[in-house]
């Protein structure tokens, strides 16, 4: 995580325009120290979210932890866009849920705005409260999919919920789920 220049581009430009080099050095040092200390502890979306926002620390989570419009998600496959988003500290945001209720749950299809691109994906783990025997994850996980239906990544190195396997036999998107499940490594 050495992406400090990604974080405050506006500030940087302001400093460079004023040519106050001493101040610039100070701020850069401060920010770098801050990031290294926090991000070495754990790689979690919420940390990045917090860094991305500002120095003030306040929670942005909803009370029900539902996946709605503009809620942030983590990409867990090894696609290059997902990695870039994680390093840049810019998690993808949900633009649309292909669903009548407009609330995403496990196995629902969503459209995501990630690094300025429009991508489609499947929700593969939720922070929301779940039924019995269904796992509840600490983060909202998503697997990206191309328009043709093939997954963009080649491997998923995170566990997927076991109840996702019944989607393979369903009427909707059964072909796309078989492709996702074939690149998965672990089930919970």
């Amino acid at each position, binding site marked *: 995580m050495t992406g400090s220049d990604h974080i405050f581009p506006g500030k940087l430009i302001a400093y460079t325009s004023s040519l106050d080099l001493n101040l610039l050095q100070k701020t850069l040092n401060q920010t770098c120290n801050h990031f290294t200390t926090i991000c070495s*502890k754990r790689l979690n979306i919420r940390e990045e979210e917090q860094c991305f926002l500002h120095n003030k*620390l306040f929670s942005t989570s909803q009370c029900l932890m539902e996946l709605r419009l503009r809620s942030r998600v983590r990409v867990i496959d090894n696609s290059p866009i997902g990695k870039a988003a994680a390093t840049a500290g810019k998690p993808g945001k949900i633009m649309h849920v292909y669903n009548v209720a407009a609330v995403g749950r496990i196995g629902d299809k969503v459209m995501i705005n990630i690094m300025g691109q429009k991508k489609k994906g499947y929700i593969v783990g939720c922070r929301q409260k779940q039924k019995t*025997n269904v796992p*509840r*994850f600490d983060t909202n996980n998503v697997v990206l999919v191309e328009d043709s239906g093939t997954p963009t990544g080649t491997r998923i190195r*995170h566990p997927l919920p076991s109840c996702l396997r019944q989607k393979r036999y369903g009427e909707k998107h059964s072909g796309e789920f078989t492709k996702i499940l074939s690149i998965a490594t672990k089930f919970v």
Partner: protein
Amino acid sequence: MNIIQKHICRCLIQKCNSGNVPLSFVPARQATVLNWLLDKHRKSQLSQQPEKEDDIEQETIMVPRDYKYLYPEFLPPANYRHRDRIREKLERQDMFCRRTMIEVPEFYVGSILAVNVADTYAPSKNTRFVGLCISRENDGLRTNFILRNHIDGNGIEIKYDMYSPLLQSIEVLKLEKRLDDELFYLRDCPPEYSTIQFDMEPIHLPTGSAVPLNTIKVPLGPRPWDKKWDIKNFKGLQPSNRVLGKRAAIRLERSAKPWEEHDLMKQYRENINDEDVETVLKEVVLKTKKKSTKSQRRQ
């Protein structure tokens, strides 16, 4: 006082103290039958099939003191509006039947479990999950417990119904207690405190030893948190460095309820009293007596 007033006085006093019938002075708005009245009807000789009194109530059985914490799911709810003697009895029958089929071991919040569940879509028709028990909730057939583990950078929690027929086995890998009744704060703690290897070998305690208490104090991670853990006085948490603002401090001061510490009636309403606990646990002692030699702790 004139004569009429005296008469009214006499009537009211009679109303208050007539017979053994408990009078509730707060009028019951609901059109329901009270517990004691219903039990009287069930046992009365005028009815078609009068219910026989239990032999268990008359027997003198010593209930061990730790049974209250060993079998917490057998304790009925404290609210008398939600209680019924026959329903509880039928529910307990089902629970005992289930316990003969599957061995439910002794475990507490903070001990490590491995659970096998039937799953139609798994290739082996079975899934195994290992985790730390965070909470035990509810009573009767509704009891459930939550296991937590941290796998490949993902915190995962699964809730299980204890009396669901899908459960194949429950195995205790490490028997332990923690300082708190629920450990939901582990969600916002560093992941090493909730990571457990799937191939962990069970740790056996020597026979007859007491259940060890783990006095570990867990540090909290950086904010944002799921809830304001630092305010809630958990014993198993390290005090955080968070400095409260002026408004937050005022809010915390206002939310404090020091008078509830000694509110005796509030405690009585929220917790079930000891006499009711004993009548329930007597049955548990009788039913578990047969198996006790078989499933003694950590042989």
